[in-house]
């Protein structure tokens, strides 16, 4: 009897141990298969405006005074699609990349994309009979006046990297200050978290070389590639001196090729490759690049620690894409360390 009981308790113990072991495994698996934690995605906000027309006057970033219906749903946006979607606003039509939009189901329900995008077709916009047209910051006055003939036009802060300025402004336009505050906090939270994680990885103050390849290895210039802004401004990493010199010499022109012989002089502590042709959002190094002797001369290549980024993901800086952008960067850093 005693023996049987002991066998029984042993079996229970064994089962318990197995369950424990299994749940530990399961917990580990739940955390993240890659080891790192992903950034929290943008909060889903509602467009809480009233439905009745409410005439308002707004002073735009150009100093113009625009009178419009603050509660209108008839919006065409030539800019800022991702920011507006995060606010919960669903314009009639936007100018944005369709592939990017389809990666955010729910955020662009019922939103059309414009076909004529260079720079725009007044007639196409007019077919939506908009009550408000949102445009980019640097649009010519002459272009704006063409659009003003159809509906009130408000330019958005597209050049601004300051979320408080950019999102706060959109909040002011629509009276959605609460949403703006939520999004600003979210964006700043992500930036802070990313900075912490970079610090935890011991990357703060390290030099990072970012390369891309278009018939020649080159360094992507300027802030219009948002990863540059994130890496070198927000996360406090540095370019190599050679890279700074290169950017000055090439006057920030895109795709100026570096001699293959000198590529390795540009190598920093961390090497990131930005893929301009990534397929289905999966960046990879092209066959031509891998065969390039200049690329092969990089230590990071030899030690297989080149982080990969999908260029398309960083063409815009809307708050909607922020989590994906930082996820991509952190993943690239993890590979590159």
């Amino acid at each position: 009897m005693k023996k049987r009981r002991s066998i029984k308790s042993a079996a229970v113990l064994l089962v318990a141990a197995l369950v424990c072991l299994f749940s530990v495994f399961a917990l580990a698996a739940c955390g993240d298969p890659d080891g790192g934690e992903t950034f929290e995605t943008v909060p889903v906000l509602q467009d809480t405006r009233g439905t009745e027309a409410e005439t308002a006057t707004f002073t735009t970033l150009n100093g113009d005074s625009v009178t419009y219906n603050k509660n209108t749903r008839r919006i065409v946006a030539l800019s800022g699609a991702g920011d507006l979607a995060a606010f919960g606003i669903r314009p009639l039509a936007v100018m944005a990349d369709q592939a990017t939009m389809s990666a955010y189901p729910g955020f662009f329900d019922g939103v059309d994309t414009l076909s004529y995008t260079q720079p725009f077709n007044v007639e196409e916009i007019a077919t939506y009979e908009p009550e408000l047209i949102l445009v980019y910051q640097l649009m010519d006055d002459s272009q704006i006046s063409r659009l003003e003939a159809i509906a009130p036009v408000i330019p958005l802060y597209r050049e601004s990297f300051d979320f408080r300025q950019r999102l706060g402004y959109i909040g002011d336009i629509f009276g959605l200050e609460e949403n703006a505050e939520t999004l600003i906090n979210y964006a700043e939270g992500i930036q802070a978290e990313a900075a912490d994680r970079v610090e935890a990885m011991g990357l703060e103050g390290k030099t990072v070389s970012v390369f891309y390849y278009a018939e020649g290895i080159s360094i992507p210039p300027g802030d219009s590639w948002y990863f540059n802004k994130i890496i070198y401004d927000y996360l406090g990493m540095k370019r190599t001196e050679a890279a700074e010199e290169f950017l000055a010499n090439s006057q920030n022109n895109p795709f100026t090729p570096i001699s293959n012989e000198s590529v390795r002089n540009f190598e920093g502590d961390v090497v990131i490759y930005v893929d301009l042709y990534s397929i289905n959002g999966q960046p990879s190094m092209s066959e031509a690049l891998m065969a390039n002797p200049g690329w092969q001369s990089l230590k990071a290549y030899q030690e297989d620690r080149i982080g990969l980024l999908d260029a398309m993901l960083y063409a815009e800086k809307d708050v909607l894409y922020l989590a994906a952008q930082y996820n991509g960067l952190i993943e690239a850093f993890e590979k590159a360390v």
Partner: protein
Amino acid sequence: MNSIVKKRLSPLRKGVYVNAALLFLLIAVFLVGCNVGQYRMSVGEVISTLFGGGTDLGRVILFEERLPRICLAVMVGLGMGMSGVVMQDLLHNDLASPGTLGVSAGSGLFVTLYVALIQGNGSSAVLMPILALFGGLLSAGLIFLFGTRRKQRLQPTRLIMTGVAMSSAYGAVSTFLMLIIDESRLEFLQRWQSGELWGTEWEYIVVFAVWLLLFGVMTYRQGRVLNVINVGYDVARGLGVNVGRQFLYLSVCAVALASASVAFGGNFFFLGLIGPHIARRLVGTDARVLMPASGIIAGIIVMLADMLVQGLEFLANIPAGIVVSVLSVPYFLYLLMRS
């Protein structure tokens, strides 16, 4: 004697009739063009809007979008078509045109330089055509300088070959400039070089129209002289024409017409060549009827190309000049093969 006069007169009269028919066709295409666009308006709405009725939005679409663009298309065609006739007659060569002689490339280079180096926000309506004219004249002068030899007869073929070489040189310089400018200007230049009707604001169109009228009349007045020169320089000299002076005068007019078209309408490469060719088959060689016919035909071609781009969403973002090229190059090759 009488019969000779009759024979001489009849092609001219026929030419006048054909021109009248072409003008009707132009107006017809123009009216169809008023009905083509992404914004749906019925024919009735368009007509009532044209005569002052219609909705506010309809008026904006028609008067601020469609009409200026169509007018620009017609004027670009007129300028290039007439300029092509003058160049072909002056050089006795049906392959001469603003495009093949490198004049439009020269204008193009100056526009490129302007956009790349000078232009800020808000460009001037007058500066660009003037620069284009300057570039065109300079380029014509250079081509003349390199393409002729002292104490030798003028060789049109040599001029054309020099023109081809010079345009490829301008092309290289343009490409180089395009490699060193930022992307938004690059887009503009690339669209412009492919032939986009971009100067669609009434102020541009007024400047262009005045320019076109001025040089058009100046050219047209010399139609007889052009006819005589086309027969032969010696014949013209024998008839008391000051060939050197008229040649210079007509060249400047032709370059002025072409350059303004290039500046406002972009680079429509084969337009100045195709227009005169089709026109010659319809009205014969008399410059007095050939010039308007060529201009009208070129205008119709540009309008049709623009209508395709505006009407078909499939062609969105494609400059009208590309449509013109794709349509006209096979015809041009066909001409080359059978001549």
